[in-house]
């Protein structure tokens, strides 16, 4: 049963990967990459139960948090063109969509 779930998650990741490769705008690619990240966390959790080593759940916790922070960082980089930009700097980069 875990194997079926893993195959389904892998199929979902392949679909999201196709969107990430073909996405017309950069935001489609970010959305697909974020989805691949969350699905990777889910895949690790199911794999931990499949191999009867639930300690993998610690990795999932770290992975989900890192995925969230990475998504916010990439969005800031695209929106402002600089990761160190403060809030009141109005240098809006010409994001290529």
């Amino acid at each position: 049963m875990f194997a079926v779930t893993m195959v389904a998650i892998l199929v979902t990741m392949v679909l999201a990967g196709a969107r990430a490769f073909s996405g017309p705008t950069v935001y489609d690619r970010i959305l697909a990459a974020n989805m691949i990240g969350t699905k990777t966390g889910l895949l690790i959790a199911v794999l931990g139960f499949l191999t009867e080593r639930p300690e993998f759940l610690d990795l999932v916790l770290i992975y989900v948090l890192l995925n969230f922070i990475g998504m916010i960082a990439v969005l800031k980089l695209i929106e402002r063109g600089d990761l160190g930009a403060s809030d009141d700097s109005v240098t809006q980069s010409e994001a290529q969509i």
Partner: protein
Amino acid sequence: MEQVLDILSWVCLITGSVFCMIGGLGLLRLPDFYSRMHGAGITDTLGAGLVLVGLMFQGGGPLVTVKLVMILIIALIASPTSTHALAKAAYKSGLKPSLPNEDDH
């Protein structure tokens, strides 16, 4: 009791997998960026939630269940936040949603 929990776990896992694949299909097939976000949202809430609940029913002990609940809470908080930030960034950059009747307004 063991059998009932196993069946519940299987049902949750399979339903979550189906929702994951539906969301992936929506991400690939829907016509517009903002509608594609809807497809991605399905996998983040119902797909991941049902799979994690299905794993909870496997009964790996209290520590495993607590970790799964923590993962679920983090996913339920982080996913809408990042989706909101993504939609805001896309809208601010001038990406307009494609509406059916563009002549009406």
